[in-house]
């Protein structure tokens, strides 16, 4: 066929252009530091199947998920048309006809062409009519070009088939093309000329698409699957260690990111789901997880430049805005890892001493005294003085449960009362427990996530040494942040403790019938899932069981469980000022709870939440409508006075 040679030239040129347009990424990935992401292939594959095959995360946004699924399936069906189009002319004699190319495959192509157009139509409706905020900052022209190319490919496919039907081909398997053939016929177009025209438009659009992809978010067609395959299989609560090969603790150039971190950048689809759930972004701070990734990606594409990575490509304010709540990573359909990048860049800032005054004071206090408040360590266990019974010193005698109390629960006067309640509950249930008194140090969870790896190591080592010197069976923590550090981060030092949150232990005690509680009359309360208990460590159910056991009815907020909205305190944010914050995340959350209209209690299970939300309620002036209570306050042994429920005006 006369068109074979031109087509070969066209195809080879297109592939060469595509390769040339991808060269910078290929070189960057080839030169990137190693990352150990080749273990457990079956588990990795399974994740890919769920993520892509079942569109698990995609379908959390129904319209997006469904339209993407339509386009995705249509793409695979129409791939047969692409194979046919190129195969038949590159290799004369090639045809799909023997396996049904002109019968059932043709019918599928015909139907899915229409479905593809429907999918694109929905996409256009979403992007240009609904215009969700998560697309803010995404490239609009990139999306538009893709839509045009898809429409061109599909339309030319249908029209080419229609032209062939006009020329006498059998149209019985192609109802849509047949209908179009009627139109073409009436337009008086020559069948042969039409077929050739639409054929070349079709292959031309496909090749243009191919050439276009390396510079477009549509790279994800090729990279989403590998990026999901090579996802981190570490526990979610384990912050990445500093690789031994790295000289400084942090990262200050793109090339220092390992290949998976760089692959992340290329895989981003700019869907903005991360941006939509980011508390820092909602607070008006200069952080969008999406733009963080795309800014890094654009810097990678631009190649070496004079602008520094930290403080240039990514501003310091952006890095410090993150609460490390992990909502972005949870939302990302292609498993991009935002937090490791932020933490690595923060490590660079900390190593250079570029920290805000508030953070500096907290870190200096932690270095000096082991707590962020600057309180003497001798005062750590002072809360025990007002208990009616002594608390065991776990360093002196064996205990069943070693209670790691944490800074806020130990020192903050607003939380100490709750700490005593927990102690009373444990005693009522007959638990043999003890604490470390002044030997306990801050767990280092947020120190580590603020990028202070050296101080984290010092704190962790000190706690591990103290804990290992004690005789105990399990560790209980008050603070979900301590829970995360002890359970996950301390693994870096070979420490494998059985650690559980106090809500888990209390749920266990109630299930075992060891706590006899007052049962409320089913009053409605709402519950805030702390990031480091829920999203990080899967502790969703125990708190809910406790609320139920205490006789309350849980009315969950729209953003709950994995989708819980951060209070804004994590990752060292609690030590920083809120310059630039237009709406505090904690106040945003309180408004969400108020909008439920029928809850009097805002139940929390994290000391930092008690502090943050109490302040938020004060700031909003709604103390008469909502009260922050810790779960431990809801649980009242029958031997004590029952909790008095405030009256609430339901709206």
């Amino acid at each position, binding site marked *: 066929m006369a068109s074979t040679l031109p087509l070969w030239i066209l195809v080879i040129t297109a592939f060469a252009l595509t390769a040339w347009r991808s060269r910078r990424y290929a070189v960057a990935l080839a030169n990137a530091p190693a990352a150990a992401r080749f273990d457990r292939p079956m588990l990795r594959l399974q994740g890919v199947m769920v993520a892509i095959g079942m569109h698990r995360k995609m379908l959390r946004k129904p319209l997006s998920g469904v339209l993407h699924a339509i386009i995705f399936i249509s793409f695979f069906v129409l791939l047969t048309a692409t194979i046919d189009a190129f195969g038949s002319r590159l290799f004369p004699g090639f045809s799909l006809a023997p396996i049904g190319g002109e019968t059932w495959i043709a019918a599928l192509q015909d139907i899915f062409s229409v479905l593809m157009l429907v999918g694109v139509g929905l996409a256009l409706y979403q992007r240009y009519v609904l215009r969700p905020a998560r697309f803010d900052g995404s490239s609009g022209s990139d999306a538009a070009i893709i839509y045009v190319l898809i429409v061109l490919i599909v339309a030319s496919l249908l029209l080419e088939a229609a032209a062939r039907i006009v020329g006498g081909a059998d149209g019985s398997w192609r109802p849509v093309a047949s209908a179009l053939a009627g139109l073409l016929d009436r337009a008086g177009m020559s069948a042969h000329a039409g077929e050739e025209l639409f054929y070349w438009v079709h292959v031309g659009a496909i090749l243009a698409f191919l050439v276009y992809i390396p510079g477009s978010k549509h790279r994800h067609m090729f990279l989403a699957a590998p990026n999901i395959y090579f996802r981190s299989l570490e526990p979610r609560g384990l912050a990445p260690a500093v690789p031994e090969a790295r000289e*400084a*603790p942090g990262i200050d150039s793109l090339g220092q990111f390992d290949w998976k971190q760089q692959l992340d950048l290329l895989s981003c689809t700019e869907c903005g789901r991360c941006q939509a759930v980011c508390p820092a972004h909602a607070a008006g701070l200069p952080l969008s997880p999406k733009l963080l990734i795309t800014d890094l990606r654009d810097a990678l594409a631009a190649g070496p430049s004079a602008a520094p990575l930290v403080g240039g490509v990514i501003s310091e304010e952006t890095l410090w805005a993150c609460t490390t709540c992990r909502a972005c990573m949870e939302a990302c359909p292609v498993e991009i890892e935002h937090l490791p990048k932020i933490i690595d860049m923060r490590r660079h800032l*900390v*190593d250079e*001493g570029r*920290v805000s*005054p508030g*953070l*500096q004071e907290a*870190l*200096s206090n932690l*270095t*000096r*005294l082991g707590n962020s408040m*600057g*309180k*003497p*360590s*001798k005062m750590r266990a002072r809360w025990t003085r007002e208990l009616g019974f002594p608390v065991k010193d776990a360093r002196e005698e064996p205990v069943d449960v070693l209670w790691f109390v944490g800074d806020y629960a130990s020192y903050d006067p607003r939380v100490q009362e709750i700490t005593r309640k927990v102690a009373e509950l444990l005693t009522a249930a007959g638990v043999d427990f003890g604490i470390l008194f002044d030997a306990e140090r801050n767990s280092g969870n947020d120190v580590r996530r603020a990028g*202070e*790896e*050296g*101080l*984290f*190591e*010092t704190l962790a080592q000190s706690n591990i040494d103290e804990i290992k010197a004690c005789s105990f069976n399990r560790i209980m923590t008050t603070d979900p942040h301590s829970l995360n550090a002890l359970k996950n981060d301390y693994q870096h030092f070979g420490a494998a403790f059985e650690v559980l949150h106090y809500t888990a232990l209390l749920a266990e005690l109630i299930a075992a019938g060891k706590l006899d509680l007052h049962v409320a009359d089913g009053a409605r309360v709402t519950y805030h899932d702390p990031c480091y208990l829920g999203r990080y460590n899967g502790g969703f159910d125990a708190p809910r069981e406790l609320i139920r056991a205490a006789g309350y009815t849980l009315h969950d907020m729209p953003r709950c469980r994995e989708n819980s909205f951060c209070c804004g305190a994590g990752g060292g944010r609690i030590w920083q000022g809120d310059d630039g914050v237009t709406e505090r995340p904690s106040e945003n959350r309180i408004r969400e709870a108020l909008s439920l209209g029928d809850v009097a209690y805002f139940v929390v299970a994290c000391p930092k939440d008690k502090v943050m939300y109490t302040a938020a309620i004060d700031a909003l002036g709604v103390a008469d409508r909502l009260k922050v209570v810790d779960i431990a306050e809801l649980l009242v042994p029958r031997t004590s006075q029952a909790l008095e429920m405030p009256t609430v005006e339901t709206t």
Partner: protein
Amino acid sequence: MNILVILRMIPDSAGELQLAEDGRSIDREWLDFQLNDFDDHALEEAILLKEAGGAKVTAVAVGEGANRVLQMAAARGADEVVALQSEEDAMISSREIAASIAAMARAKSADLVLCGVQSSEDVFGQLAPYVGALLDWPHVSGTNRIVANGAVLRVTQERGAGVAVTYELATPAVLGVQTASKAPRYVSGSKLREASKTPIGRAMPESSGFERSAEIITLRLPVQGGSGENLGGNAETVADRLVTILAAKGLARN
């Protein structure tokens, strides 16, 4: 330029002070000790001078926890660190240590001695003027900015009511730092770990040389509450009372 910077360890200001049994000192057994805040600024100023024009910075620490703070000083950029021995469980009187510091300044051929303008234990006088007078070097206390141009120093002193006065003087000199030109920098844990290998020199104290000094007879805690009325610790009742008090004094707005 050789800079000698003095770092005094003092009882943590956040801690609760209790009197020892003899009634003449505070009970130091349960106290945390920290670097005198002004000395921290002096150290920062020394490092800033080194960064601006080159200098050798020798940090001398005295008191409980001196080694820890010297490692921190090394991590921040001190070239040499020396622990000056002091009597255990005794307050660090600037009057007592001044002669030792003056001797070290001579031995190290210092051009500039920097220390914090005050410390919580300098009831018998401040270090900078003592050392300055002993060496017969000019001294300025309460600085918030020091610029070195060769052997000439330009020093800004904080006075009351926001007034700042700039002086010029030649080295050798002694300066009592109130605030460093930039807030003391943060030293990361990893840098501290690296600096923990820095060798720490030792120095023995000299006699103060003073024949007659004042002496503490007794210490006491100030009378609590003064003559004011205690409104208690319940925020709601306190707020109620304050509203009434303000209204009664015509201080509620409008």
